[in-house]
Structure formats: C-alpha cells, structure tokens
C-alpha cells in the first residue's frame, strides 16, 4: 500500500464520516457520466458557464434547490459547505443538522457534506447528472474532498492560500500547504480514470480592496502547486474590482501569465480556465439595486471573456438566499448572456504592462526564496510579508498593504508594506490617486471605498 493510500485510510476513518470503500469509488469515477465533469464542458468552450452558490443543511432542501436550478437551465451546480464543517467542527455541524431536520429551520449556512456522507450525497449528484462544484473555505479539506469526489463532485475549489488567508484566523499555514498537497494528489490520481478533476483557486480572497497584483500572484502560485502534483485542469479566478477597465486588465494579464507560468513549470498539457466572480464585497440593501449589480457583473464577465461566472443573488445583503431567488438569478444571467452580442475585445497596454511587471516582481521574489520546495518558498514569502492580503483575518498575514480607489474605481496601492514592487510600478499606482491630507480622511475614504457598490 502506498504512503498516500495509508494516509487516506487514516484521514477517512472518522467517527462522523462514511466508511470509505476506495475500490468502489474508483469504479464509480471511472464509469461516471462525462456530463458530470466540468473539465469536459470547458473543453467545448461553447459558452460562458453559469454557476450560483448554494447550500442548505438538509438533503431534502438541497435536492429541492437543485430542482429549482435545473428549471433555470443551470450549467454548473454548486455545493456550498457550512462554516462548521469548514473548520472541521463536525460535531457542531451534526448538532445543527439534527436541529435543522427537526425544526424545519436552517441552523447551518451550508450543506454538511461529511455528516451526510458520500453514499447518500452521490444519489443526488448522479440524479441531476450535472457538473457540481465544491465551495467551502476549508484549510484542512482532506476528508471533505475525499467525500466530495466519492460523491461525484468533480470540481474542487480552494487552495492553501486562498482558503486560508481570507477564511481562517490561526490555522497553521504550513499545515494547510501539506493538506492541500494531499487534495491535489487525490484529484490528480482520480483524473487519470476519466475526464480530469478540475481544481479551482479562489481569487476574490477577502473581497475587500485586494489589489490585482496580489490576486494574480496567488492564482499563479496555487495553479503551480496543483500542477506540481499532477492536476491537469485548473481554473484561475478573480472578482469584480469596481472598475470595468481594471477587470479587463486583470483578465488579460492573468490569462497571459497563467499560460506562461504553467508552460514554464511542466503544465503544458494542463487546461487553464478563467472564472469571474460577481461582486464579492458588501451588497446594497435594496434588492432591485442588487439585481442591477448582478447584471452589470454578468456583462463584465462576458467582456473579460471568462469561461465560467459565479453569481450572486438579490438576497446577498440579507442572508442565505431562498432557492427561488437563487434560481431567478441564474435565469437572469442566462438571459443576459443569451441576448448580449457583439462584445468588443479591449486592451490597455499601459495598465497591463504595469500590472505584469508587478506580478513578475513578486513571483521573482517567491522563486528567489532560498527554501527547497515551492510551497516552502511561498510560505516564507507570506510570512515575511512579500505577499500581503488586505483585510485578512489570519495572524500570519502582514497587514501592511493599504489600498484605495482612484476616480475610475481602480484599486491602487498607497502603502506597499513589504511587497517587492518595482519603484516605477509603485510610483504609477500612487500617481493615480489624490490622497486626502489627514489620516481620518484616508480612513473614511477606505470605508467609503469598501462600500463602493452600496
């Protein structure tokens, strides 16, 4: 038995989980319908795939949600996991699941997949025969991902950085790298059986004034870490910045560099896709305005030529959306994509050059770290603040970078902290904003800029 398999046995032997029958699972994946693999749909590239978010505690309600989505002609079904499971607190998840089932009231903000187990969940997945995407935010997602893949969920979102820095306060980052290495290994292993399992990184991060250079660097790193383990289908992503031009520039640079770095690091045969997230920050509290924001995002997703869009709902500011509301959002998005024609291809040479220089400078700093493996280099870079995510709750994050919006809505870096930005790039960033005089005014401007879509 291989070392990996031994590890898998230990991981999956958990009092809250199903008993894992790996042979049966391999058989299931080998014979699974290709329709269930998003990588299969990406290959066709005939349209921008639409995916909502959504998870309810009980099997019954989850099933009903999928039924609503199917009526709206959905492309990719989501499975969003509750926040207790995300922090591996299966006991609490179980308690709340029981309460939800007994009281007909949702006591969890997602589907507790581990507690439901793969045998049960697989029934739902094969019933709908659509690609499903696992959305969570879990630093140690090993058991969760094993359960997901065994259930027929063939896209796994997340990564050691993107599911740590925005989603955790003190989970050890070095452990997260190893746990995600495990996830990538398992995904790569199953990828040889049928269509590849798709891995997706979570570009929005904290969704709060994160500058594009940081987003892109982290996207490239997680892509390279996955490719290192043999993953063959990977999605990089980012969310609406607040300036259409900055979205376009981010997309152009991200696409270009993702392909370049993938090829440079042995991923020539890997398929790289682009995912666009509708606005991930604070939503307006008027649902009609939220609808407008959502539609604006759909158009931008088409303009930046994304391969998949992950959508929000008009309930975003209020709480987990109702199924009807969520399905309506899918229908609206599909309508706009169907009727929106003749999109221009846009470039901004100056902005793209500046952003590419910034990204390359940070990537060089990562590669120049003396550690022996990529993940250790990255770990050191984050620890020393060369990578720094604004508004991360995590204790390891440096929290020195400060950003603000310019008049066109672009996010600009006004304090670079320890980011290794070339002087001319930092000068360019600063040249775009008129900084208020007093510190209080700067803080007020930041608060205002966080609420750009209110």
């Amino acid at each position, binding site marked *: 038995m291989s070392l990996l398999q031994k590890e898998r046995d230990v991981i999956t032997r958990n009092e809250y989980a199903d008993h894992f029958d790996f042979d049966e699972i391999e058989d299931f994946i080998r014979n699974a319908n290709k329709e269930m693999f998003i990588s299969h749909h990406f290959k066709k590239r005939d349209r921008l795939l639409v995916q909502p978010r959504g998870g309810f505690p009980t099997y019954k309600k989850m099933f009903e949600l999928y039924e609503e989505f199917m009526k709206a002609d959905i492309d990719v079904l989501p499975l969003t996991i509750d926040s207790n499971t995300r922090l591996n607190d299966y006991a609490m998840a179980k308690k709340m699941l029981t309460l939800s089932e007994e009281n007909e009231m949702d006591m969890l903000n997602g589907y507790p997949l581990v507690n439901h187990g793969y045998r049960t969940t697989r029934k739902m997945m094969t019933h709908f025969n659509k690609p499903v995407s696992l959305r969570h935010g879990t630093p140690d997602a090993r058991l969760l991902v094993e359960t997901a893949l065994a259930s027929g969920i063939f896209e796994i979102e997340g990564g050691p950085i993107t599911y740590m820095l925005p989603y955790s306060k003190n989970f050890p980052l070095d452990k997260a790298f190893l746990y995600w290495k495990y996830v990538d290994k398992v995904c790569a292993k199953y990828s040889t059986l049928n269509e590849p399992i798709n891995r997706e990184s979570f570009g929005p991060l904290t969704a*709060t004034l994160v500058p594009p250079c940081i987003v892109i660097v982290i996207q490239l790193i997680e892509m390279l870490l996955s490719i290192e383990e043999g993953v063959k289908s990977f999605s990089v992503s980012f969310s609406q910045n607040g300036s259409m031009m900055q979205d376009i520039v981010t997309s152009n640079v991200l696409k270009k560099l993702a392909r370049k770095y993938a090829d440079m690091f042995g991923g020539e045969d890997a398929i790289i896709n682009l995912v666009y997230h509708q606005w991930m920050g604070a939503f307006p509290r008027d649902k009609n305005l939220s609808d407008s924001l959502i539609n604006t995002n759909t158009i931008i997703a088409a303009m930046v030529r994304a391969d998949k869009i992950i959508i929000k709902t008009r309930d975003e500011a209020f709480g987990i959306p109702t199924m009807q509301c969520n399905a309506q959002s899918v229908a609206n998005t599909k309508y706009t994509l169907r009727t929106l024609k003749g999109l221009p291809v846009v470039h901004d040479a100056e902005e793209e050059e500046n952003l590419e220089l910034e990204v390359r400078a940070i990537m060089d700093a990562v590669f120049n770290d003396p550690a022996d493996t990529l993940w250790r280099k990255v770990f050191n870079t984050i620890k020393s603040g060369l990578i720094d995510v604004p508004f991360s709750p995590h204790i390891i994050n440096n929290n020195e970078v400060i950003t603000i919006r310019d008049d066109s809505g672009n996010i600009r870096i006004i304090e670079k902290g320890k980011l290794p930005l070339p002087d001319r790039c930092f000068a360019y960033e600063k040249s775009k904003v008129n900084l208020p005089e007093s510190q209080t005014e700067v803080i007020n401007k930041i*608060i205002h800029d966080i609420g750009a879509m209110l």
Partner: protein
Amino acid sequence: MKVVTGVVGNDIHVVANRLIDISLQARGFEVFNLGVNTSLEEFIDAVVETDADILLISSLNGEAEGWCRDLQFLRSEYNLKEVIFVIGGNLAVGEAAQSDIVPKYKSYGFDLVFHQIDLNTGLDEIERFVKERV
C-alpha cells in the same frame, strides 16, 4: 470605559470587526479586540480578565444563534450582571425580521440587539444606554 469585542463562533468576517475597533476607539472607548473566530467562553474570560463594562459581539455569517443560547447560563454563573451585553450584525441564517430576532436574543441574555443595523446607529444607542444606566 472598557469594551471587549470580537466575532463569535466559526465566523471569519473581519471587515466589520476592523471598523468597529476603529469606531469604538474614536468614541473614546478602551478596546480589547479578540478578532474573528472567538468562542463564547473566550469572550467571557476576556470580560472577567479585563474587568470590561461592555461585551460587544458581532456575528455576520448566521451562526450566532447556535453559539449564544448558553449565554444566560454563563452570565449568571460568572455573576456578570453589571456588564452590558450587546450583539449585532446579521443574526440569522437567511432573511429574518428584526421583530423576531430582537426578543429571541434578549431572551438569551443580551441587553441590546442590533440585527442588520448600521454601525453608527448602534453605537449611538449603546452610548445612550450606558448614560441611562448611570
């Protein structure tokens, strides 16, 4: 006055927490910010340790109810009658009316409950409440 604040449970929404920290300081409070992902026991410990006047809990991701049901018990256990217990943010999974939420959380032992209330409105109310108590 001393305020212990933070975000309860497995909730990692940090943006409001940072703003609350800044706003409380601007209003002259002495702030002990436990940050996100804080359990009820940690809050109570911090209140005891710092001899705080106010405990201001945030919750954004809908978890609060699961965590705060034992508050009444802890409150009497530690004899914290003088401390003002406040909770605010988004206090339910899914959309919920204030008229349902406020009495529920008051029954759990909170003095002030702000479901989907603007931060400054809430802090004004807290200051008013403090004055009336003295």
